[in-house]
């Protein structure tokens, strides 16, 4: 199975990269882009066909390694 893991800074955490990107977009004329938050995206190929197992494995990896729970949250999609 494949898991997609989206890691993003928590809403309360300032994102210097996102701020720089939104400033750049606005200076390029995209005035209607009011905010940008930059995150990380991971695709995991999992050696299992069992959905529950895959979800468990992906969330273990996200929790232990891919995200730092102090500043980041994550979302997982499995298929």
């Amino acid at each position, binding site marked *: 199975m494949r898991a997609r893991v989206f890691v993003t800074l928590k809403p309360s955490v*300032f*994102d*210097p990269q996102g701020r*720089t990107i939104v400033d750049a977009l606005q200076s390029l004329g995209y005035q209607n882009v009011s905010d940008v938050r930059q995150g990380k995206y991971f695709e995991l190929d999992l050696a299992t066909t069992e959905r529950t197992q895959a979800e468990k494995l992906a969330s273990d990896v996200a929790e232990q390694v891919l995200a*730092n729970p*102090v*500043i980041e949250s994550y979302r997982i999609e499995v298929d």
Partner: protein
Amino acid sequence: MKFGIVVFPGSNCDEDAFHAARDLFGQDAEYLWHKDADLKGADVLILPGGFAHGDYLRTGAMARFSPVMGPVRAFAEAGGPVLGICNGFQILLEAGLLPGAMLRNKGLKYRCEHVHLRVEQTDTPFTAAATGGQILKIPIGHGEGNYFAPPDTLAQLEANRQVVLRYTDPQGGIDEGWNPNGSVNAIAALCNDARNVVGMMPHPERACEALLGGEDGRVIFDSILKTFRSAESLALQGSVVGNASESGARRASLSGERGR
């Protein structure tokens, strides 16, 4: 006393720390490879700057899984003095030995320059020889030194006096214009609750010789030596009177029962 300098693949300030400990302060020093299972009798540990394991996922994220971090954690939890400098600070955060996390610098630039720091706390093994309010001029070199902690953690850090150094202007005033990375509350260094683990973004090992542009970093090393000497004399008193107090015993174990 013996310094243990922990070397991860990608550390690049290990030799500077080793040079300061051995050549400038005349102490024993030994490198500890990240795969080592023991600390080779070190009395104090330095996690030096660099880019441990390449810092690819997040700074310090993989280093906390290095085998040596097991003994490092045990040493820290037993009260042993541990100093994380720059990437070493980031590793201590990721390992949970210090609270909070690092974000990209507010201006996104890698900042490599001298900064002014105000000594906030002198009751740590790494600031014991400084005076409260003293201004130090020490270089930084980092892209991710923007310290962050959630508001409740931050309030607790301040209440417990765990902020050890702050970025200031040359006179010691807090001014956002003199905060190089956007750290919350201008935090440049902090300690754990037990005060034996300190993380700092500035590089004291690069500021121990006039040739390198300043000697203000020496006070960090002087502090370690001062702490070690007072722990030694406490342990000695304990053995003379034969009733070492609990804290005396803890300090004795801190000194590792080795002479210099």
